[in-house]
């Protein structure tokens, strides 16, 4: 029971991380396509500036919770995905400092360097997180001793790549919707047009991914035995359709919230399909890491549950407050004067 609760909390934490960092990763990756001059680039930075770091802590927490609640999964997952994870981390490092470093030196080359780091450092994690999670859905070559018997190239397979493209498109749409919410004028128009343009490919890839999951993974086993659960992928698809409907009406905030729901829905679709496995083995299902063979002791799970149920609501409360505090659209005059890096 305790293990099952933590399994779903684990899934929800990753979903929340994707939902939150997704919009700033997407905005960052779109920087060169959205902003046509230095002022517009500054506006893009400013639109995600107060939020990106708080969003990224959800990654640290998702990682930390994997460590705390399922140490064996943490050990196998991150040593197995060594090179992919290192690429993600280095990308996040270069991207993170760009926010602060960019405007410290007033030289076009300097700014272009950090703009490149923001863009590339946002693009790569978006893609690789998708590749990694699709491969987890599909199963990793884990042997009887729990050792990963593959390399970086093992992850490069059609289903894994489809997952990568899916995450990338989800985040790009999420990011352009965010910029449509947060900016005005030509920048907003470009962001809105981008969201509309990327929505169709996203729908196509999402549909492809769902059908590929039928063939390439055993995710649907749980759905076959409990058809009511199909509500989750159905809600994800419905949310994706809502994104389109809200976009058509110019309701950007609502479209963005629908996009949040889509990302959470896609993640939970996978997590529910995995249950009770955290890392299925593609060598032999019996080698899979599950709640039973990788969870922490009941005492640790209990203590962590108290900690999580006490402090995560507090975190959510003050992070929501920050969104209210910086709820206004970013205007050019905000860039001058005090406030900001």
């Amino acid at each position, binding site marked *: 029971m305790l293990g099952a609760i933590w399994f779903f909390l684990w899934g929800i934490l990753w979903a929340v991380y994707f939902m939150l960092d997704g919009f700033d990763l997407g905005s960052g990756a779109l920087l060169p396509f959205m902003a046509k001059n230095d002022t517009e680039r500054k506006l893009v930075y400013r639109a995600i*500036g*107060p*939020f990106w*770091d*708080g969003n*990224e*802590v959800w*990654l*640290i*927490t998702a*990682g*930390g*919770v*994997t*460590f*705390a*609640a399922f*140490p*064996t999964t*943490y*050990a*196998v997952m*991150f*040593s197995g995905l*060594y*090179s992919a*994870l*290192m690429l993600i*981390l*280095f990308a996040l*490092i270069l991207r*993170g*400092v760009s926010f*602060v*470093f960019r405007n*410290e*030196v007033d030289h076009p080359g300097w700014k272009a360097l950090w703009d490149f780091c923001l863009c590339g450092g946002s693009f790569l994690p978006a893609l690789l997180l998708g590749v990694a999670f699709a491969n987890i859905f599909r199963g990793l070559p884990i042997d009887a001793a*729990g*050792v990963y018997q593959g*390399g970086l190239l093992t992850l490069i397979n059609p289903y894994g790549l489809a997952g990568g493209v899916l995450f990338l498109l989800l985040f790009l749409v999420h990011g352009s919707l965010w910029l449509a919410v947060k900016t005005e004028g030509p920048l907003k128009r470009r962001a809105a047009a981008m969201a509309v343009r990327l929505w169709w490919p996203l729908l196509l890839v999402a549909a492809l991914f769902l059908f590929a999951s039928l063939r390439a993974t055993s995710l649907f086993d749980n759905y076959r035995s409990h058809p009511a659960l199909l509500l989750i992928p159905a809600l994800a698809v419905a949310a994706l359709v809502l994104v389109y409907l809200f976009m058509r009406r110019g309701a950007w905030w609502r479209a963005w919230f629908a996009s949040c729901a889509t990302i959470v829905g896609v993640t939970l679709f996978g997590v529910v399909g995995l249950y009770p496995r955290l890392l299925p083995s593609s060598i032999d299902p019996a080698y899979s890491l599950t709640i039973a063979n990788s969870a*922490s*002791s009941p*005492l*640790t799970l209990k*203590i*962590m549950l108290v*900690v*999580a149920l006490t*402090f*995560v609501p507090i*975190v959510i409360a*003050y*992070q929501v407050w*920050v969104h209210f*505090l910086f709820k206004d659209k970013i205007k050019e005059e905000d860039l001058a*004067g*005090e*406030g*900001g*890096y």
Partner: protein
Amino acid sequence: MDVLMLSRLQFAAATMFHFLFVPLTLGLSVLIAIMETVYVKTGDEEYRRMARFWGKIFTINFAVGVVTGITLEFQFGTNWSQYSRYVGDLFGSLLAIEATLAFFLESTFLAVWVFGWKRLSPRLHAVCIWLVALASNLSALWILIANAWMQHPVGYVLRNGRAELQDFLAVVTQPFAFQMFFHTVFGAYILAGFFVMGVSAYHLLRRQHIAFFSKSFRLALSLALVFSLGELVHGHIHGAEVAKIQPAKLAAMESLWETRAEAPETLFLIPDEKNQRNLVEFGRLPGVLSLLAYHSTQATVKGLKDFPPEDRPPVTLTFVAFRLMVGLGFLFALLTLVGWFKRNKLESSPGYLKVMLYAMPLPYVAMQAGWIVTEVGRQPWIVYGLMKTSAAVSPIAVSQVAISLAAFIAVYGLLGGVAFYLIMQQVRRGPEPATAAAVPGEG
């Protein structure tokens, strides 16, 4: 080189680099919070400018600290998977608690502080930087509880082929954790104090922004003085605790080979690890080591020869790092004491200011040396007495680690260079002109 050695080098490089930025975050956040509070209480605009100037440096420093911290959490999984598997039940939860309690608070409210100058009332804005200071110190507490458990594992039981949590309170309240916490944050406050004093000295020597940097200097001096003196007392208590729970580390710190009662403290010596002796010994103070370690000149101190060779930490590195740290600790107390008598005539003390300018790197050296004593001195154990470092490493390809280590060195080298340049640029630029902040509507 094998995966073990490369992984150790990688973790050492990543942690030591990360810890170039962390202490300044811990100490400078407190100083900035004090400055902004003085501004809120007195309305003195100069303190607001101080908070903004030091805050700018803080932000650059914090950015590098935070991005290099993320890799550390994941390295336990990537490079030390056997360790994670064996002790994750206990150790993992401490890291998760650190993230939930401290990282969210720190990152979220620093962003509010940076972007909120015009959106928040001065009082609420000051609260934000206090929350950042609280959160970064809280994160130090939790990570040091985790590290203290590696130094002195308590509250666990060996079950299901791993170390499982048995007594959470024993883990989070063990005295050694709080000793490590105080030792580290005292050091961080000293470092931040010396940083602010050094930068202030730079401007005072050039006779610019005199009032601004005199105030900054005096504030930093008070902090550094209190904690330099405090660290001398506390360092001794901490050392005595190490003697009790990690006798092999103590023997290496002192390069003491033979077990003996009335063990001497030797002022100068050169360890000769190969022949298990000291090459040169000079200035022996009989019984002083016994007195320091066990509070009795007659007490017996265990020498390195009484530990099997495979259970001894590297002696020379531990010994030199310890001597360096202690020597610098005394120097900090001396320099801040001198400063106390010169605090009201700083401008007419160029010699002292020059010394304080060049003393800026020294607390960084002391901090790094301290961590070398802690971590190298714990070897060959990753968890003292429970798990050997060699048993903790991941079953991964040597090429993977070689490539990632090279990437760490390249990226961190670049990052360090850029951060140093940008901080120096801020330092040289000095504070914003007084008028800018006084424009109505900007405050």
